[in-house]
């Protein structure tokens, strides 16, 4: 069994000045739940930074110290069929600053719903190749403010994405690559005018779209998956934070992370999956240089008749 939760789905919504989202096996892997299986659980993530990129200039700020973002997310993945899964995530997010006076914020951030389709699969004796297509939407679940960065819990933009994903496995070793395009809706702020590189007399902020690419490779065993990951977020537009200015939702937010990801399905605890991992930002623009880690626990409910027979779609 593979519990294929939706951790990284948060990306669509939460790619922010601070980048809060969880990190798990996800809508970024080549695993699917079988028909009428529901994998559901919680994931905790912790993300912090004290350096950030003001435009391209890396700096610290004694008036905020270290910004810490924590989140607890309810995540799930349901097998509509063996080929099509439905994924969701509902995160609750907390922020705080270690210095200065700015107040931490908390609340339900952006919920995500996505579909994942195993469009092509080829299985040989020793190797396998598969292609997936994903599409999803996300929307704010509460009326939190996006205009209080870096303390805001998110950017409050409705968004949608499409992703292509390819996976190759040889023996126990695999490599997965994916790329997605994220459409983001404009956001409303309380102010009726704001300055970016010019004045805007509106309370609506045009949010540039984003590209996201992810590469992961490692060992995929029956009970254990160990992956090295790298990913890159590229915002297609937006503007740089000026010298000593505050961040803004429509900044050009770019980030490159490297990370490690683990998944374990204990033989002695049937239907349970445990996940853990972390990432570290190695390059960025208008974002915090975050180090993040996460841990999650998930359980699989079987609603189908032949529930006992489960297998991953990918292991040859």
């Amino acid at each position, binding site marked *: 069994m593979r519990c294929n939760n939706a951790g990284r789905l948060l990306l669509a919504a939460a790619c922010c000045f601070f980048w809060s989202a969880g990190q798990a096996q996800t809508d970024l892997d080549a695993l699917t739940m079988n028909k009428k299986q529901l994998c559901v659980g919680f994931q905790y993530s912790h993300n912090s930074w004290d350096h950030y990129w003001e435009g391209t200039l890396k700096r610290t700020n004694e008036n905020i110290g270290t910004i810490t973002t924590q989140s607890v997310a309810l995540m799930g993945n349901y097998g509509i069929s063996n080929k099509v899964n439905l994924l969701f995530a509902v995160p609750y997010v907390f922020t705080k600053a270690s210095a200065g*006076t700015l107040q931490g914020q908390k609340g339900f951030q952006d919920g995500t719903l996505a579909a994942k389709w195993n469009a092509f699969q080829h299985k040989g004796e020793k190797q396998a190749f598969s292609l997936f297509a994903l599409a999803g*939407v996300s929307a704010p679940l509460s009326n939190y403010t996006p205009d*209080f960065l870096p303390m805001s819990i998110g950017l409050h933009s409705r968004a*949608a994405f499409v992703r292509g994903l390819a996976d190759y496995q040889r023996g126990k070793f695999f490599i997965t690559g994916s790329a997605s395009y994220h459409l983001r809706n404009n956001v409303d702020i309380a102010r009726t005018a704001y300055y970016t590189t010019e*004045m805007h007399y509106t309370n*609506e902020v045009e949010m540039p779209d984003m590209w996201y690419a992810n590469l992961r490779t490692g060992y995929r065993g029956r009970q254990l998956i160990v992956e090295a990951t790298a990913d890159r977020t590229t915002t297609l537009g937006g503007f740089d934070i000026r010298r000593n200015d*505050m961040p803004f939702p429509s900044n050009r937010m770019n980030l490159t992370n490297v990370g490690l990801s683990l998944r374990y399905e204990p033989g002695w605890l049937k239907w349970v999956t445990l996940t853990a991992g972390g990432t570290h930002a190695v390059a960025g623009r208008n974002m915090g240089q975050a180090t993040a880690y996460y841990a999650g626990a998930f359980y699989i409910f079987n609603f189908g008749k032949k529930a006992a027979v489960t297998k991953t779609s990918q292991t040859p």
Partner: protein
Amino acid sequence: MKHSLSFFIGACALLFVACNKTPEDRSESFPALAPANIDIQAGTWKPLLLTKADEVSLPAPQAANSPGYIAELNEIKSWQQKLTGEQKASIRYWGAGGVLRWNEIMRTLVAKYNLPPYQNADGTYPVPNAANPFAYPIFPFASPPYAARAYAYVSAAQYDALVAAWHYKNLYKQAAPHKADAGIKTLLPVSELSTYPSEDAVIAGVSAELLKLLFPTEQAYVQQMATEHKLSRILAGMNTRSELEAGEALGKMIAQKFVARARTDRAGTAGGNQAQWDQMAADAVAKGETPWISIDAPKRPPMLPLFGKTKSFLMDSMMVINGRPAAPPSVHSAQFKKELEEVKYYTENATPERIRIVQFWADGVGTYTPPGHWNAIAAEAFVKERYSEVRWARNLALLNLAMMDAAICCWDAKFTYFNPRPSQVDPSIKTLTGVPNFPSFTSGHSTFSGAASTFLSYLLPGQAAGFKSMADEASMSRLYGGIHYRSDCEVGLEMGNTIGKIAISRARTDGAD
């Protein structure tokens, strides 16, 4: 497989729910200015610095039958033969009103320059230097007092220059180009106002000249805007070149009076020095109070502590001192403890509505500041009134002179009492907006808003209730945000109301009402 595919297509369709569109910008939809009243007598209105409307002389226009004038009419027709989309957009943009557009340009520059300097490696702070404006930190740091004064000077100079322009319009009674030549198309609303000198060029000339002083690194941008503004009048068939040249020259000459005043109004030394800052703290200690300390890290010198000594247009220095409010509650008093608890209550019990109010009025770093916000509010109200350019200028001038006085009186109180912010006294108070780097009493937002709403209510009595509720909300936003005590807000609002009334008494006697 079929189901999979149709499900996936369904999911993709959801994507189209989210599609970007460029937001509608209110300033782009302002209609062409068609004054309800051309204020034909405005040449007799009382100027602010000029001793009389014709203090600066302006030669008579060339005769309507002179070859030079006819050549200028031909120039207009030549431009009009083929107008590009960009040129038509320029006509539309400037056609909404010169005073309006230059006020917007000011707000843009203030927002662009409203950034506190980053510290030096040793924890001290560099100060923007007007003599070396391009070096970091770029001159100026358009903080609220700096901005209040900048808006005031430009608006006041525009007003005096337009009073002079109206005087000469009436004196020379030049007919509009389209009356001299039926081949000239007018692409903007026409009026019976004499077109010599061009009021648009007066505004462009006077504004550009003052902005050289106030935003010296922006001269290229400012000159480009002035050039576009003037050309738009030829393209629109509204003015000849010599009407524009005369207007610009008049504007520039009159600007010099204001530039000279600005150089000697004591704002240039408002930053003070270490000894003066220390003395302010020592005075507070001598009174048994807790002196203000910067909450910025590293500790930043206070923002323009001597701005209270800047020379006002509408008040003399004794009026500032005599109007100074009584001291805020002592930090040792029961009243102070009660007010501090109230600040803490609001920060710990923020509601979405109060957060909205805090953000709506924050007007902090990187914005056009509270005076800019009130200029924006006024401008959107004035557009509906269809004022003549000279009345636009007069109303914005008095509004901005009142807000400059609000800055003077508020800064005078702040640095007389030098009292601490709530978060200094109780570091557990976490704020919903940045803590400004100067003492608490009185609230700048409240003082600005009291002055602005009082004066705007005089101009537009039908909207008085709306202006008052905006001012009350702006004032309370600082308490909700956790950066001001209630007495800062209430006394600031009251002081602002008094300052607004001084502008009203001037308005009652300047001949415009």
